[in-house]
């Protein structure tokens, strides 16, 4: 993307104190987000992708969580240095978020109208009547039929897909610069998933909103994202342009993920592969590469040494990966996990 940067995250560290010990949920992540860009973040459950974005929103529950170090710069302003009041002005206004489960993310005790108008009235200071018109307009834009009537209803009267549309309408009603979507389609039917993603893409085109799309669905990433960050055990193990990542993965974990996805064009008899083993216990990370115990490429060295970030620049863009082994174009060599 050749648009200006809008968000820079630098060496972010987030940890939680739990009964079983200290969990380093996000461990030194850096990335940039450009205007109008869609950045995908993929990884298994517990890889820290949700925590990363809650940190950007300033919603890490404290205690037990804490942003240990790093910076989150939005339009030249470090969000971590803002007071909670100043942060409230940005949250929901300039940076909005939608959540995984639309069934529980809406307040069951308030009407859709209450929940929609509250954002615009609070952030934009507009009167109720205007806020209501705007809310109806937003609902129509996200494709809710009969919006003027349905706005009076309660969340339980909406289906899951409709609720997610309401969530999107709510998140976009202040025309934010950044929309963080935390697995927005995971809890929905497959057919609805496509509709919701399409809606988000269309709104992004109209408004020029940058989107951070958190998902574990590589298909979603392939179709919607410009860049992708692959996370594993709190670290970004690979970052690249989407096309490049799929064509030429440099980290064994990325490769593993790609192999575990059904390929329609490939050999119909080919077996899907799974990555063996379990994600590591975040309270006791191995001293070396966190993926080493599950990696068929790993050796003694990987177990001892944390791999540094390799950054490769090319034609105005760059890619990064964290692996000691220069495995290059693994697929070309016929590598199989």
């Amino acid at each position, binding site marked *: 993307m050749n648009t200006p940067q809008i968000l820079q995250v630098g060496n972010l560290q987030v940890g939680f104190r739990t009964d079983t010990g200290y969990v380093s949920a996000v461990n030194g992540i850096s990335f940039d987000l450009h205007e109008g860009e869609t950045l995908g973040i993929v990884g298994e459950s517990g890889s820290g992708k949700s925590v990363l974005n809650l940190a950007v929103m300033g919603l890490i529950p404290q205690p037990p969580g804490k942003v240990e170090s790093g910076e989150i710069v939005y339009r030249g302003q470090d969000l971590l240095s803002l007071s909670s*009041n100043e*942060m409230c002005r940005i949250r*929901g206004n300039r940076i909005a*978020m939608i959540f995984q489960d639309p069934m529980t*993310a809406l*307040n069951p*005790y308030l009407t859709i109208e209450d929940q929609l108008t509250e*954002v615009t009235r*609070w952030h934009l200071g507009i009167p109720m009547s205007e806020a209501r018109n705007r809310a109806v307009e937003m609902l129509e834009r996200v494709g809710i039929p009969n919006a003027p009537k349905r706005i009076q209803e309660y969340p339980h009267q909406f289906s899951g897909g409709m609720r997610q549309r309401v969530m999107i309408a*709510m998140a976009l009603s202040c025309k934010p610069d950044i929309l963080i979507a935390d697995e927005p389609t995971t809890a929905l039917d497959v057919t609805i998933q496509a509709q919701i993603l399409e809606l988000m893409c269309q709104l992004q085109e109209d408004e020029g909103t940058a989107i951070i799309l958190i998902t574990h669905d590589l298909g979603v990433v392939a179709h919607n994202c410009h860049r992708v960050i692959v996370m594993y055990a709190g670290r970004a193990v690979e970052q690249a342009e989407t096309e490049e990542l799929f064509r030429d993965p440099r980290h064994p974990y990325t490769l593993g993920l790609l192999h575990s996805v059904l390929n329609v064009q490939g050999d119909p008899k080919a077996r899907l592969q799974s990555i063996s083993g379990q994600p590591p216990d975040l309270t006791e990370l191995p001293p070396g590469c966190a993926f080493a115990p599950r990696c068929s490429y790993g050796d003694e060295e990987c177990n001892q040494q944390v791999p540094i970030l390799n950054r490769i620049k090319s034609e105005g863009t760059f890619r990064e990966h964290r692996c000691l082994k220069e495995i290059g174009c693994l697929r070309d060599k016929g590598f199989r996990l």
Partner: protein
Amino acid sequence: MLRILVTRLGWMVLTFWVVYTLTFMLMHAVPGGPFDSERRVSEEIKRNLEAKYNLDKPWIEQYLLMLEGIVLRGDFGPSIRLSDYSVNEVIAQGFPVSAALGIFAMVFALSLGLSAGVLSAMFRGSLLDLSFRVLATLGIAVPNFVLASVAVILFSFVLQWFPSAGWGSLKQIVLPALCLGAPFAGYIARLTRTGMLEVLGQDYIRTAYAKGLSTRQVVLKHALRGAMLPVVSYLGPATAAILTGSLVLEKIFALPGMGSHFVEAALQRDYPMAMGMVMVYTGLLFVMNTLVDISYGIIDPRVDME
């Protein structure tokens, strides 16, 4: 809405009938009658007295006569113990006093309990939370008559701020209402705290924060409703408990409410009086429970009123 009320009314009639029958059976299951304890009553006078109160008739006739009086005329008949009064008069005099005491206590308990509970949950684990919880537990733990006697010693005898007994002025209602309301304030604070903690962990609270709302807005607009549901459903049983508690406080503070007649009527076999009291309390409880159900439906749109 109308259908709900009609159904409710049906249940109310049924409840009244069940309670009436149960009370009647219980009263007459107790051996002995109202005139047994009075030594110097000759057989003839006793027989006359029994005739006056229909006690000489068979049970089933007594049952129907009393029911008839209540249903057709709303009249419980004359009191046996207080020979110059009818039960209706006694209720008419005592009810406003008991009701005022109960309402004052409830308002006090709700306002204190809700705010303490909310603050406790918001500052979970802080010194404020701890002290509120200790206070709430204290309120629940100390029986109200202990609280009342300590209060009388302290505020009436030592500090002389409030009178120790009597009825009529606002000053006289303060101590009994506070003592009556204290345990309920404690319960409500506990329930609110628990409910609040539960609600604050919900996804929609995270959504509300993600919208950029301040903590105050999130708590008051988004969290309080859900957190209040357990409190609302507690109000039904709380009414019953306040009725019970007022018996003791009316005794300690010598208030002219219904409470004093309550126990006496049962102990001294004042059948019409006991029946009157039971029916009044049943009615109160029923109305309160209905109100609770209705407000539950108002607060939580998911509850189907039918």
